[in-house]
């Protein structure tokens, strides 16, 4: 093999790589002087648009090509409180590192910072989305990712505001590592299936930290829901898995850490419920496996309506709650097993770690207040303490089917 041969190979290599660079990875840079819409319409699929630092007073930008838009040091796109900012209608788009702010507010359209319409494989990441009606709005989109964004707003009331991440009729989404504050709902899912929500922080939203309906087979993990108006609401869904989430200080007189309404065949495991008015509020739900959770310092750890059946509560820790469990009926079709209850005062003669007498988590006073809320005025009075003690000896008012037959004596290490 001669020198010429080697040189020719080199040339071929170089030409090919140049060709690739030219045809597939053209990159364009824009500054605040450019019109971004023109640039976006001129580039080809697969190109990268770098957006320089600065303030872009441009909005209603429609992304029609499969391109990457990458901001440098968070260039600011402002909706001028009238318009939307980015509307993505092409597949395979990446939007990264932008600051999007001040969308308009309208009762006709849902104004969003970044809106994805009927697309797939779109990624919105590392963006700052401030003061938008809707932060990221996904509409009939699949396999999209919303990752590591900071989404903030200062909504005052439910009617005037939208959601941080709003998804409607989507599947296979990944929503992770976002921080969502000050919206109506932090994350809103409706008809969204097979999706993963993980490592998000949803704090201080007006209504729910997370709100989802008809969203089957989704997984929620490692999220933090804190200080939201009414906690988290999960409705009309089956096959939900929630694990290792933290629900903290959803405290108010119409608040709960998590509301389960018509949920079935789901798992709630390894979560922490701390300082919520109600830890889990359960209504019309079936076959949910609630295990390895920690319920600490809540008003009510759980309120389980009589319409729930076939649920299993096992190996949870309950301590420091004002009331462990409240229910509104005498019928109880759920199973409580091997939980740790700090109010349990039984004994364990055979030293197997389980108490020998059953624990009744529903106190008589909680039965009374459930029936007649006015009786709450006697909360913490000497009389109600006596009533609780007497009822522990001889259960007559409390639903005696609701009991833990083998309560743990020691806290589970979770």
């Amino acid at each position: 093999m001669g020198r010429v041969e080697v040189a020719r190979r080199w040339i071929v290599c170089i030409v090919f790589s140049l060709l690739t660079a030219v045809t597939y990875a053209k990159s364009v840079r824009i500054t605040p002087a450019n019109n971004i819409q023109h640039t976006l319409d001129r580039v080809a699929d697969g190109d990268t648009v770098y957006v320089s630092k600065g303030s872009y007073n441009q909005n209603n930008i429609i992304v029609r090509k499969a391109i990457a838009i990458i901001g440098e040091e968070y260039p600011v796109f402002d909706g001028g409180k009238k318009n939307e900012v980015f509307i993505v209608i092409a597949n395979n788009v990446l939007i990264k590192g932008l600051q999007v702010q001040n969308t308009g507010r309208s009762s006709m359209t849902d104004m969003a910072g970044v809106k994805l319409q009927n697309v797939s494989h779109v990624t919105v990441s590392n963006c700052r989305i401030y003061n938008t009606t809707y932060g990221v709005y996904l509409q009939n989109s699949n396999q999209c990712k919303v990752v590591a964004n900071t989404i903030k707003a200062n909504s005052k009331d439910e009617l005037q505001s939208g959601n941080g991440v709003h998804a409607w009729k989507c599947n296979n989404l990944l929503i992770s590592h976002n921080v969502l504050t000050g919206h109506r709902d932090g994350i809103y899912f409706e008809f969204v299936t097979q999706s993963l929500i993980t490592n998000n922080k949803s704090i201080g939203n007006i209504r729910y930290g997370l709100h989802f309906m008809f969203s089957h087979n989704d997984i929620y993990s490692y999220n933090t829901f804190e200080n939201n108006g009414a906690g988290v609401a999960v409705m009309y869904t089956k096959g939900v898995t929630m694990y290792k989430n933290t629900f903290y200080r959803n405290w108010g007189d119409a608040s709960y850490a998590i509301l389960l309404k018509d949920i079935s065949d789901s798992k709630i495991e390894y979560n922490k419920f701390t300082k919520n008015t109600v830890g889990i509020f359960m209504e019309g739900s079936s076959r949910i496996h609630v295990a390895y959770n920690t319920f600490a310092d809540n008003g009510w750890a759980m309120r389980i309506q009589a319409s729930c059946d076939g649920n299993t509560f096992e190996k949870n820790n309950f301590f420091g709650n004002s009331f462990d469990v409240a229910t509104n009926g005498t019928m109880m079709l759920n199973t409580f097993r091997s939980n740790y209850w700090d109010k349990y005062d039984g004994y364990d003669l055979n030293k197997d770690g389980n108490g020998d007498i059953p624990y009744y988590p529903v106190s008589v006073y909680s039965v009374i207040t459930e029936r007649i809320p006015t009786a709450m005025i006697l909360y913490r009075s000497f009389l109600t303490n006596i009533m609780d003690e007497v009822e522990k000896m001889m259960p007559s008012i409390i639903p005696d089917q609701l009991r833990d037959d083998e309560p743990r004596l020691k806290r589970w290490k979770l």
Partner: protein
Amino acid sequence: MKIIIKYVLLDLLRNRIVIVYTVLLAILSVSVLGLDANPAKGLLSLLNVSLLFVPIITILFATIYFFNSIEFTELLLSQPIKRKSVLLAEYAGVAASLAGAYAIGVGLPLLFLVSGTESLILVLTGILLTLIFTSLALLIFVKSRDKTKGIGVAIGTALFFTLLFDGLLIAFIYSFGDYPIDKAVIGIIAFNPIDLGRVLMLLQLDVAVLMGYSGALFKKFLGSATGSIFSLACMVFWVILPLLLSVKVFKKKDL
């Protein structure tokens, strides 16, 4: 009048019971607060202890003291002093020493372990309850000549307010649960100083939300400053009313 108060206070100090009471409260406070890592929980336990023991101990001790010092009272009355000032001075002496005992016994540990508005309200509640039940003891003293009967009535009164009243209230709530009785219930608790104290204290803590959860009226009324002011005003009323009544009875009493 000042001199009489001074003598009553000195007599009580020599008696040592007040000191024992102080130490007892202090030990109780330290142990209750030390048991629980969560200060709010500790405060609640301390509230329960206060609501149970303060009324009973106060009313019993004050009644017995008033009866025991009846000779001293008669001696004073043979001097040119108004009956009103003698009675009020005795009341002031007993009330001040018991309230002081509570303030030191519970207030000091709280100051070091859990200082804050809630602790202040708890001490205030305790002191008010002390004043109220001393005042009631005075009324019992002037109304009954016989010591045994007086002590019996005192025990009855304390039990009535700690237990029986709430029992009747819950029976009332149970019977009329289908009617809008929220307002009536708030009105009714004004008739029990212990309930007033409990509500006043609970309003300062997070658990007040539990009360709001169960009724819009509770939230609206008790959640606002009006609720606290209402309970406080009622409690002050509870101090003054028995006091005025006993002065009135004592003026005409045949000793």
